[in-house]
């Protein structure tokens, strides 16, 4: 079966919905569709807590936001992208406000902003500590008003169809029925989010399996800066549920076993009772997570069945502030940890949170493949470089979702072409492959979950907060082995209706690709920068590595890493200074 | 479906007002006349006294309001109880006639009785 649209958006999270609305607004004549493996309002954007950064206060400037982002990224971002980003972010957040987003307000009715890690000014807009939830539902509900946006809810994309260097659509499975369909389009926008589930301990939802990265990679588009994986310093020990940075921005402290605010030992400034911007607990995430590792080495953390932890102290904030500004933190702590942060210390440890890298795009969200666009966490423009600042990601989804939507709309209209017959043939091949997968893998002896668990352990050991040449080589070997075992993984479920095992198997295949890209990119970057810390190369090396890595898939299925210079406009590489 | 012609808002208003007056007034009246006097918990008031009270137009007005609204309260709730509790929605028309019709008839009787006191 074949369906056709002008623009197909894969993903219904913040970036995907924003892109779809942008297409509909730019050119109402275009037939736009959103395909998502979960109902759009269940996308992972819903989990984002802390806020979205955009210059709003009179004492703030775009340049300062740009500088914070650039220095936060350890100078690996593209500064033209950052400048576009900071300039458009306020508009995007205001647009959300016009669409109904319940941003928290000041008493006079204006938007309120809060502090966030690595930011020199208060510029993070928030909707209590359920920012992503409100943002996503606002976008989703607004998207409902565009009745022309066709939705494929609970459809899983398995392949991007490419002919002669141009993307012409996708193949997707409808979960409920198991029906596969070739969905053609003149432009495809990938907004599939990140890949935290490649790691064992993550804040990311079950759906964050790097599908889009692998889809693009397999289609021939390069992935950029894949070695940069963000660890967030404060996740709950067993579940990995995030305790938002806003908890520290509102004044929370990080304590070690001895009750000591240990960040002062790691060049992050001196403790003050009140939170100070770009100081101590408001340092950037990479530095905070690294400090944790050193605390573990010094034996100053607390051991729990779920690994070593430090303590987040919110008690001095009082119930009133916590209920007003951090109600979700309180709810999560009490539900999942049986702790009331008003009176008790919250055990936390670093947790894989965000993927700085992703599908290589330009400022319009275009990938090197004609007709293929990407935005949101799946993409790498790049504004995040070696370390993303908290609260930059939600506005990134909006700014670049909008840009990609507009660019794709223009492209689809201008270069409208008949879908080549080879595409339809490819689609049929893919449909046959999926049908065969269901039937053939009866004899499998390998459990999907076992392979997945081992892959996750491999990634944690090989490419954790600190890595080195040996750990990465070992990880590469293990991944190769897991890949072989994956070929023999069994699918017990042969049903066509809501076969989540088939999906888990497809996701695992995607994750193995993404994992390999992360390891290979990390192995070649012989320096330490931002979230990529090599114990064998502890210093930053601008001489050799002030460059984006680009990993491409070779015809034989192996990866190859190359480099692309970083764009520097106004802020030459400097030292990252916090707390001074 | 013209909302401006739909009787539901009016019926609901009657139902709610009925629910409120019933909650406020029925317990004490029922307690006195249905339980306390019959079982001798309190001594029964004299006919003359009650007659005097009842003769006051205000009393009669209040009692009429109470009766009519309480009946509409019953009608509305009972209608939905039959719809949902007994799954009789397919007989909606006779049910509606029975319930609200009953309330109207009851109100007329009440008016008649109270006027002729």
């Amino acid at each position, binding site marked *: 079966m074949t369906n056709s649209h002008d623009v197909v958006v894969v993903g219904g999270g913040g970036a995907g919905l924003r892109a779809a609305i942008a297409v509909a607004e730019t050119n109402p004549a275009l037939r736009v569709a959103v395909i998502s493996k979960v*109902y759009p309002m269940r996308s992972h954007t819903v989990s984002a807590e802390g806020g979205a950064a955009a210059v709003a206060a009179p004492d703030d400037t775009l340049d300062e936001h740009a500088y914070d982002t650039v220095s936060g990224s350890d100078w690996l971002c593209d500064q033209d992208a950052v400048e576009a980003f900071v300039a458009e972010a306020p508009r995007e957040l205001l647009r959300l406000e016009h669409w109904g987003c319940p941003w928290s307000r000041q008493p006079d009715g204006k938007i309120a902003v809060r502090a966030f890690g690595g930011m020199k000014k208060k510029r993070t807009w928030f909707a209590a500590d359920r920012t992503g939830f409100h943002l996503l539902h606002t976008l989703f509900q607004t998207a409902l008003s565009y009745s022309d946006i066709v939705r494929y809810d609970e459809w899983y994309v398995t392949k991007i169809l490419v002919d002669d260097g141009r993307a012409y659509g996708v193949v997707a499975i409808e979960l409920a029925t198991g029906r596969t369909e070739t969905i053609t389009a003149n432009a495809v926008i990938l907004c599939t989010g990140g890949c935290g589930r490649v790691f064992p301990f993550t804040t990311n939802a079950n759906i964050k399996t790097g599908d889009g990265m692998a889809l693009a990679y397999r289609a021939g588009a390069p992935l950029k800066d894949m070695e940069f994986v963000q660890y967030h310093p404060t996740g709950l020990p067993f579940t990995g549920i995030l305790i938002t940075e806003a908890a520290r921005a509102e004044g929370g402290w990080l304590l070690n076993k001895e009750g000591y605010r240990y960040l002062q030992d790691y060049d992050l400034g001196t403790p003050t009772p009140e939170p100070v911007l770009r100081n101590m607990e408001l340092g950037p995430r990479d530095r905070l997570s690294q400090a944790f590792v050193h605390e573990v080495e010094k034996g100053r953390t607390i051991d729990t069945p779920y690994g070593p932890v430090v303590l987040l102290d919110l008690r001095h904030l009082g119930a009133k502030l916590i209920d007003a500004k951090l109600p979700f933190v309180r709810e999560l702590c009490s539900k999942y940890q049986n702790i009331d942060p008003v009176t008790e210390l919250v055990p936390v440890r670093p947790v894989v949170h965000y993927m700085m890298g992703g599908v290589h795009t330009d400022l319009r969200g275009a990938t090197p493949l004609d007709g293929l666009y990407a935005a949101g966490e799946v993409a790498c423009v790049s504004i995040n470089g070696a370390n993303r600042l908290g609260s930059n990601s939600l506005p990134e989804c909006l700014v670049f979702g909008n840009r990609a939507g507009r660019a794709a709309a223009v492209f689809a209209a201008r270069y409208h072409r008949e879908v080549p017959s080879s595409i339809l043939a490819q689609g049929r091949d893919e449909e046959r492959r999926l049908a065969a997968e269901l039937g053939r893998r009866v004899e499998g002896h390998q459990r999907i979950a076992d392979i997945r668990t081992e892959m996750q352990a491999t990634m944690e050991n090989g490419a954790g907060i600190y890595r080195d040449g040996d750990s990465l080589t070992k990880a590469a070997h293990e991944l190769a082995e897991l890949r072989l075992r994956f070929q023999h993984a069994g699918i017990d479920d042969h049903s066509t209706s809501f076969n989540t095992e088939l999906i888990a198997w497809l996701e695992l295949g995607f994750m193995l690709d993404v994992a390999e890209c992360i390891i290979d990119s990390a192995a070649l970057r012989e320096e330490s920068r931002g979230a990529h810390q090599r114990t064998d190369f502890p210093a930053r090396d601008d001489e050799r590595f002030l460059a984006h890595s680009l990993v491409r898939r070779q015809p034989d299925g192996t990866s190859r890493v190359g480099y692309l210079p970083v764009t520097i406009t106004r802020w030459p590489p400097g030292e990252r200074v916090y707390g001074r | 479906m013209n909302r401006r012609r739909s009787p539901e808002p009016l019926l609901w208003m009657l139902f709610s007002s009925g629910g409120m007056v019933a909650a406020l007034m029925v317990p004490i009246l029922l307690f006195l006349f249905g339980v306390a006097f019959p079982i001798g918990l309190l001594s029964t008031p004299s006919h003359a006294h009650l007659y005097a009270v009842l003769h006051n137009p205000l009393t009669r007005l209040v009692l009429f309001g109470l009766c009519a609204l309480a009946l509409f309260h019953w009608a509305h709730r009972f209608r939905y109880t039959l719809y949902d509790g007994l799954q009789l929605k397919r007989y909606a028309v006779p049910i509606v006639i029975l319930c609200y019709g009953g309330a109207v008839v009851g109100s007329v009787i009440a008016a008649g009785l109270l006027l002729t006191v």
Partner: protein
Amino acid sequence: MATEITLEVARYRPGVDSEPVMQSYQVPLREHWAILDGLTYVKDHLDGTLSFRWSCRMGICGSCGMTVNGEPQLSCATFLTDYAPGPIRVEPLHNFPVIRDLVVDIDDFMTKLPKVKPWIVREVQSPVEEGEYLQTPEEMDEYQQFSMCINCMLCYSACPVYSLEPHFLGPAAIALAQRYNLDSRDEGADERRDVLSSPEGIWACTFVGECSAVCPKGVDPAGAIQRYKLTAATQSIKELLMPRSLSSRRKG
């Protein structure tokens, strides 16, 4: 404490079963384990064919609603130890067609939702350049609670009216309509009124109240509906008394 607990899970395989059959699994009984952790344990280690939805595992995406021991619950926010020593009965949400095992079809809600126009309606959209629409924290308070809905469908599952009257708009859709009606930035109350104030809208609700009792996010859809009934009834009666009144632009 026992080290294991039994999950009795409803299995329904379309085309194979004519109705759900219960299947038992032993899963580890650990502190902090949600029902969902038990189910993923089953899927990963015991039986890969069990189907259920989940994603965020932190009670915010709304995917994982199930009937646990007869009560609609988010399975990621309901814990095994609270049901010890078991067994725990896990079934799909009631009042929805079952697609497979614990997966239900919520298309009905998805088609009803746009009908109440859950988005900001304004006569004139002021340009973004003019800055935000001002809204004080008090004005936000008016609708905040109703904006917390995660579309988890527990309320539909608990509402007997919805099970008997499938055309009923239902608690969450009405609460979301009220969320916009009560938003000081919105001017769409009148446009929403036809749908809300229809026999399939608020008037079908008999205030069972279970929707609010089971809502994991404290939305209080029952309250939203009641409040709207009062608004709609007052308004109708006003119109009855003053047919050409200008009362139509009023907020819900």
